[in-house]
Each structure stands twice: as structure tokens, then as C-alpha cells.
């Protein structure tokens, strides 16, 4: 009989996150019925869209046993570059491409150094974090740059389409695309294979280094998309956006979704669960008027407890 408690625990552990979410949703809904209003629920998705897009891009990188700490400054720089391009009279699509190419270039650089030169990702991307932040400040200075007269650009972050914010559509599109990539294409399998055993993947004829480069590039582009959504949402671009803590939220979402920092199995779909989990905690505490300092502490505790729960599986 004594054995049945851990046995039950072991059976429930993989579902710890959905269960915890359910408990929290019920708790919030009971203490503040407004929490369950459709507007609020859509609001939550809108709030998490930026972190969410980055987390989706980061999942593959973490699955290969890597990490990307440089997403915060990439977000800032891509917004600044997109806005400066617009101000310089570059057409909207090209300005967006300019913003996205920031992520692409930084990601490819990260990937090249990690995969080709075989340096530890945590150091490489930490250095990149500093360099990209520096470049952003060099180009954009410490000021906020308001977005004026670019309605089409502003609509990306604040417009609606079919009753839903465009940023939510974007988040959904990125997610669906990457879920399909993971489930249906060889790349999804290859990512898992590299995370499990990179040597064996290479000996199976796969171009593991090129693949890793591509994954960092995807992660960088994700951060750049987030930067464009963010700047258009708040109608300003700034070199100081994506401040310290941004990357932690992103990484926490991925890991809460069950992807191990050691690499190996992971799932984009479950990353979304992690993203929503953090989003719900933030939103619920806002609705309940929990002071920000307490919010941060509570969030930390909840992340730690959920992670401990999912590690308990082993």
C-alpha cells in the first residue's frame, strides 16, 4: 500500500503542468470571476505572444542541449532597425525583412560559433547578448523612439483581425508552423536525434553542425519577430527593450513545458503550455492586485516547484 503513493505520483508527474494550471485557473476564477471573461483570456494570449514566439523558437535549441541567452537584445535591435528603416522611407515589407535579418544574422553567428568552433552555447550567447545590446545602443541610443505615421506597422502589434489581435494570429501561426515542422518533417526528428546523441546522428549521415546553425538561426528570427510585435504594440522602439529577465521567461517557459536543459526530448506544443502557465500566473496576480515585488517572488517559487515536480519523475 505504501508503494502506491509514489506509484500514483509517478503516473501523474508527466501531467504535473496541466494539473497545476487547472488548479491555478480554478483558484483565480473563484477569487475573481472576471478572470474567465473571454476578453481577459484573449488578453492573456496577447500578453504572452511575445514571450511565446521566442519560446517556440528556443525549444529546438534547448532540445539539442544548447541555449540562447541573446534573445532579449535581438528583440530590441530588430525593433530599432525596423523603425529606422521605416523612418528612412524603406517600404514596410522591406523594413520588416530588415528587422528579421537582425535575428537571422545573430542566430547564424551563434550557431556557427557553437556548432563549428564547438564552444559552449551558454558562453557564446552570453557574449552575443552583450555585443548585440551594445550594437543596439550604438544605433538607437538610450532613448525611446516613438512610431509616428506608420499605421500599417503599428497594426502588427495593436490591430485586430477577425476579432482577434493580429499578434495573437502571428503567435498562433508561428506555433502551428513549428509544431508541424516538429511532427511532420525530418527536421523535427533530427533535432531530437541530435539532442539524444549527436555523435550517432553524425554517424547516421546527418549534417549535425549545419542543422544546429539553422536552429540558432530559427531562434534568432523568433526573437526578431517578437521585437517587431513588441515595438509595434507599444508604438515605440528602443535599444533597452528585452531587458534582463526576458530570456529567463522564455527559457522557463520551454523548460516548464518539459524540455530538458540537458537536451533530448521536448515538444513545441508543450512549450505553449509552459508559456500559458506563466501568462496565467502573471495575469491572475495582476487581476488580484498582488504587488509587483510579491509577484516576482511568487513566480519564482511556482517555477521552482513545478520544475521540481517534473524532475521527480526520475
Amino acid at each position, binding site marked *: 500500500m505504501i508503494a502506491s503513493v509514489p506509484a500514483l505520483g509517478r503516473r501523474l508527474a508527466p501531467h504535473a503542468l496541466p494539473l497545476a494550471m487547472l488548479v491555478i485557473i480554478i483558484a483565480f476564477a473563484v477569487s475573481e470571476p472576471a478572470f474567465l471573461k473571454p476578453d481577459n483570456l484573449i488578453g492573456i494570449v496577447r500578453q504572452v505572444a511575445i514571450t511565446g514566439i521566442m519560446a517556440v523558437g528556443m525549444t529546438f535549441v534547448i532540445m539539442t542541449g544548447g541555449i540562447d541567452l541573446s534573445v532579449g537584445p535581438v528583440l530590441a535591435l530588430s525593433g530599432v532597425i525596423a523603425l529606422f528603416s521605416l523612418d528612412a522611407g524603406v517600404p514596410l515589407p522591406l523594413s520588416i525583412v530588415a528587422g528579421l535579418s537582425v535575428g537571422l544574422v545573430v542566430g547564424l553567428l551563434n550557431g556557427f560559433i557553437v556548432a563549428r568552433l564547438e564552444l559552449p552555447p551558454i558562453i557564446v550567447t552570453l557574449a552575443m547578448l552583450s555585443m548585440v545590446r551594445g550594437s543596439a545602443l550604438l544605433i538607437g541610443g538610450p532613448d525611446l523612439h516613438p512610431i509616428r505615421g506608420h499605421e500599417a506597422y503599428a497594426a502588427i502589434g495593436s490591430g485586430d483581425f477577425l476579432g482577434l489581435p493580429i499578434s495573437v494570429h502571428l503567435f498562433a501561426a508561428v506555433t502551428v508552423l513549428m509544431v508541424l515542422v516538429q511532427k511532420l518533417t525530418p527536421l523535427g*526528428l533530427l533535432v*531530437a536525434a541530435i539532442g539524444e546523441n549527436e*555523435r550517432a546522428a*553524425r*554517424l547516421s*549521415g546527418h549534417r549535425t553542425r549545419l542543422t544546429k546553425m539553422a536552429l540558432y538561426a530559427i531562434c534568432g528570427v523568433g526573437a526578431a519577430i517578437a521585437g517587431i510585435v513588441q515595438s509595434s504594440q507599444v508604438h515605440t522602439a528602443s535599444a533597452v527593450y528585452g531587458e534582463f529577465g526576458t530570456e529567463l521567461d522564455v527559457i522557463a517557459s520551454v523548460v516548464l513545458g518539459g524540455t530538458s536543459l540537458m537536451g533530448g526530448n521536448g515538444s513545441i506544443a508543450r512549450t505553449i503550455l509552459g508559456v500559458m502557465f506563466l501568462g496565467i500566473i502573471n495575469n491572475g496576480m495582476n487581476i488580484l492586485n498582488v504587488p509587483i515585488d510579491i509577484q516576482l517572488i511568487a513566480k519564482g517559487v511556482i517555477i521552482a516547484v513545478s520544475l521540481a515536480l517534473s524532475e521527480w519523475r526520475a
Partner: protein
Amino acid sequence: MTTPLIRGRGLGRIYGALTALADADFEVMPGEVRGLVGSNGAGKSTLVKILTGAVEPTSGTVEIMGEPVKLGDPSEMIRRGVACIYQHSNLAPAMSVMDNVFLGRQPVGRFGRIDKKKLEADTRALMAKHGMAIDPLATVGNLPTVKQKEVEILKALALEARVLLMDEPTGWLSAADVARLHQTIRTLRASGVAIVYISHMLDEIFSVCDTVTVMRDGRVIAECGIAEVRRARLVELMVGEKLARDSAAAASVARRPGGTGEIRLAVRDLSKKGVFRDISFDLHAGEILCLTGLIGSKRTELMRVIFGADRADGGSMTVAGQTVDFHSPGAAMAAGIGFVPEDRHRDGLMLGLSMTDNLIMSTIPQVCRSIFLDRSRVAATAKRLVADLAIQPPDVNKPARLFSGGNQQKILVGKWLNLGPKILILDEPTVGVDVGAKAEIYGILRAQRDAGAAILVVSSDLEEVTTVADRIAVMVSGRMVGIHDADAIDRSRLIEEIGGVA
């Protein structure tokens, strides 16, 4: 009568619908070397893991020197003097030899720091006592497989184990190393240690064991003194009559030295500094060429260069007449070369991925439709390979980690057969594979050969070499010293040549 050192009664272990072990009784006396044999997946490792505490049985009890012990608790078992050498290394690869040997029990000096001097001295003393020579300061991960095995044995010896469980300890050991290990075992036996020895190499069982336990389908089906049983009978008990006949027949199939005469792979003066030198040979379509030699004679290194995993410094290669210079395994595969590496855990399998994913891993383009994986093609491929290789259990979604050692090896071979390679290189393809499955793998290799593939097998197992080879090449210390038609060289001559007595 003395009490057994360790005794298990009614041991069982169930995994979901699969019974890995059922109602097994098992005991070992002090100073007894008990062989444990049975086909892949028979439950040998499961039994051993129960005795080490790594696996908790679903039924049964274990007593050590007559006292019942708490099950499923590895530290308790270690405390009571049960040590184990597993099929695969359990060492910390980034740590030094001496740290591994005394892991967690390193001598402590002033200020609670590890006393490196004493640690090194202790390690050296232990090695001297058992006639081993490894640099205590070397990093374990950098050592060749054979040395890693010695470190593991040393680690068990350092624990002053009274019960030593060995799960296929000789997987990658050369004949000389096996002999040395057996000597160590005899010394331990004389001092009253109880030893359990699992191996698929029946020669070893007959050479070192006093008694033997046979397992089949999770059950103990026979127990007897080693003198009371003959080899053929043992094989029959293990795998059943039909497979036993097949495996006996496998030894007597006509050889085809030179194959069809068409040169598939020509290697000329291939060299890699400090590793191997001036290697030249031809591999023909329709033949099996076995490359044998001592462990450390750089055969694996040569194969890696041929497969494009490492680069050579000099020399040239042609595949079907075309000069090639592979810069990656992918390039070699594009030219029709497949490579089954020797260490299935380190280089071969993605243990956390399903058997299906592993089976298609090297042939993903074949199971794709445009840019998408074609689920039905994937499933069909997996099903076909599982049937061809008789992988047990045929559960295609089970992670590779959960298969028994021999079945993992079959997954690894299967993954390359799917490529339908023109040249198939296999490095120690039957390590850990039971007699029945060995015969099956040889059958598959011969079928590939007869279909026109050129097959290159690296093997240290002379039994295997003389069974399967059409021609035999011998490597000594990075030089190729001779190539013979398999029928033209006898075993003693071969052993001399391998030993470098040219």
C-alpha cells in the same frame, strides 16, 4: 552445507504487459563462479539488476548470507558487498581513473580536500595487486573501451565486493585480455568471492565457470555443474532446437573469396599520423572480408576514415572505380557505404528515441514524401526490419533504451540494412548478441553478400571471423600484415599473425 552468499527466491519483474523475469530462484556459493546464459531478452540483466538494487522486483526476496535484504536500494546492496560490472560503462567519463575507482570514497586530507597523492598511490597499489596498468591520472572518457572496462573491474575490486556480478564483461576485450580477466576471476574465487558471469561466448563460460544457470523467456530453466553439460546441449537449452541447428549450420556455408571479382572499394597507402600507416587492400563485390587483430590495432580508426568520420593524412580510396575523398559520413553514405559502429550506446543509437526512429535514422530521405515524413512508409519500414531481424519484443514504439542489449544491436544493424548499402562496414557486429541471433545476423550478412554487396567486418572474435569470412585481413599496430583466403589459413597460424609473430 554452507549458506549461499547470495540467494534470490521467486524473483519476478513485470513491465506493463511484458514479463521480463518470472519466479526465478538463484543462488551463488562463496568461491563459486556461476555462469548465466540465455538468449537476448531472456532476463539475465534484469536478474542482475535486481541483485544490485537497480531494479525493484515485482515479487520475490533476496538474502545475503542468510539475511533478507531490502530490495530496490543500490546503496544497501553496495554496503553488503554486491558489486557489478554492467554491459556498458557506468563510469564518469570526465573524471580521472583514480577518481572513478574510488568515487565518493576518495581519501580525505587536511581541510576536507581530496588527498590526491594518497588516492594515486592507492590506485597504483590496487592495480599492482591485480596486474593491471593504467595511468591513474588519465581521463576515463579518453581511454579506449578495453581500458574503461578494466577501470570498472578495478572499481568493483576497490569495493572489496563479496559478490561480483559481471554482465557481459568481455564485450570488447581481446582474447588475451579475456584470459587475463579470467585469471583475475580465479584469484577472486580463491579468496571466497561469489561471482556471476554473464556471457554469450560459451567458450568463456566453459573456461571460467563452475556452474551454469540457463534462462529462457524470463525463467530459469536449467541449472547444473559445468562438467555435466556439453556445449551443443547448452545452446539447445538457450535457443531451442531449431535455432541451435541453424547456428550449427551457419558455420558450414561455402565461402566465396574474391566474390564476383569486381573491386568495390580499393584502399591505397592510406595513412593517418600516429594511428595507422600504408594501408592497402581491395574489397570485392559479393564477398565478406573480415578484418581482425588485437584491440588497439587501429581497425576502428581505419573504418572511421573510410567512412568519412575522420580524415586521413595520406593515401587514396576508390569506390567502384571512382576516386573519392569523403569529408563526412553523409558523403560516404551517398556513395553507398554503410557503417555499424562498435559502441552502440556512444555512437550507434539514440537511446531515448523509439525503435522506429532509430531504424529509419540513416535513411530518412527514403521514408519522406516531398519534405514530409511519410508515416505509413516509416511504419512499413520498421515493421519489415523488425521481422527480418526478429527483434524482440516487436514493439516499434518502445524507446531503444528499454530493449535488451542484443536486441539493441539488432536495431543498429537493421538501421543500416535499410540503406541497402553497396559497401557495408560492421565494427564488432555481434557483441552481446546471443548464439541464435548471431546465426541470424550472419545469415543476413551472407544474404547481402549474395545480393552483391561488399561486406567488411571488423571482429576480434576468432570464432566469428572463421565462421563468416570469405577472406581474412590482419592488422597489427596500425599496419596491415596480411590478407588470406579464409580456407587457406588455419587458426593457430592466424593467432600467431594477430599477435605479430610474423
